[in-house]
């Protein structure tokens, strides 16, 4: 859609010896800029920097209708186990999520309460 290419580096466990990764990336960036600098410019970037540049170009994006889930790493090798794995742990996360939501609302109501004392608000914050 534009001339900007976002190139991702790394994956799980790829930065255990991070200095080596950066040395390799430095070399690749230097090589490309020296030898193909007439066409391309390579640099370290971030997702927000990339999105800012794309946004300035005011592109009309196509709508994507399909779904990336479930993952698979082969024809019959679906990563579906993790939707149901450790059901108690998943239940616990949901319980904690409810706990966070209902307590946060209660704290907000207290902070908005004009009759609340300063020390009550301090103990929440």
């Amino acid at each position: 859609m534009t001339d900007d290419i976002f190139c991702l580096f790394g994956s799980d466990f790829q930065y255990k010896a991070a200095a080596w990764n950066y040395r390799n990336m430095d070399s690749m960036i230097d090589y490309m800029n020296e030898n193909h600098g007439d066409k391309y410019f390579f640099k370290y970037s971030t997702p927000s920097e990339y999105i800012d540049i794309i946004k300035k170009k005011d592109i009309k994006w196509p709508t994507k209708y399909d779904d990336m889930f479930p993952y698979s790493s082969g024809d019959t090798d679906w990563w579906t186990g993790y939707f149901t794995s450790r059901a108690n742990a998943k239940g616990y996360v949901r319980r904690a999520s409810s706990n966070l939501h209902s307590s946060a609302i209660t704290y907000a109501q207290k902070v908005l309460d004009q009759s609340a004392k300063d020390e009550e608000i301090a103990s929440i914050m």
Partner: protein
Amino acid sequence: MLDAMGVLQHHDAVSGTAKQAVANDYNRLLSNAMAKNNAQYDKLIADKVRNQFGYAANEDWKQCLKTNSTYLDCPVASKSLNESWSMNVAVHNPSTVDLKSLKVAVPEEANFDVTVFNSTSQAFEPTMAEKSCYDDHLENGEKIKNCHMEIKADTNAQAISLIKLTNGAKKEEIQKRVIPENEAETQFIEGNGLKVVYKGMDKTESTLKFDVYDEATGSSKPEEFEFSMRYYESYTHMMNNKMMNSGAYAFHPMEGQLHPYPYGDVKEVSISKGKYSQQLDITFGKHLYGEELESMKSVVHVSIDKDLPLIKIDVDLDSLPL
């Protein structure tokens, strides 16, 4: 809480794909965060109850969940049912929907008189309350009764209601009736503009079939839906004798198993219809290599929500055979 919940969003945390020791640590994080948070939250609930109802509890408030819980998690578990006492329950509704009914977990032997605080009359007044129970199956083959009371009481959005449970009322429990196979299609539960008819089971597929009639559509033609429980065998082998595999592998379906196994056969379908609450309970038994595993049962509860136009399907799933 925000830190702990943030950490739990990692792609090997809530997904359940970390190694066991790491998964344990995630739960420790959550548990510590909730313990700290609840000290503050409980105090504010006590404040709210005092301000709103003029009621100061003579003990600290203790928490208990409305769903996914039994009375053993609730303060009522520590009370002797042979003595006379009453207990106030403050119900916090943090959602943005007004609720007309609530549910509390109670022991089977408990017979409570339930009253609800009316803010206009400033007094506790009688209300509709019904207890229903089902069997929970333990791994050693024992059964325990798991009971809940469904209570008619308004709890407005982001507000609190107060009810009082008084021990020593007349014994009353909604009676369950087992539905004989030839009576499927005539049995239904209804409420809140919805009617759910149990249509029986597809034996080869172990699939339960239902018809739903929705008053809101004005149509006399039902929507059909089916429900079944399935599982895959997972890839559990160790990388070597010492190292435990990460959950990413332990919870990976076996390569080549294209279709999931059905959980088991339907052992019993029962219906309970009280004056206030109605429910279908479907008990699945588990078979393994043609042999029935007596200790493994799962119960599927079908009911209609009192507040939202929803059909609720709660599953009490016992462990899968290894």
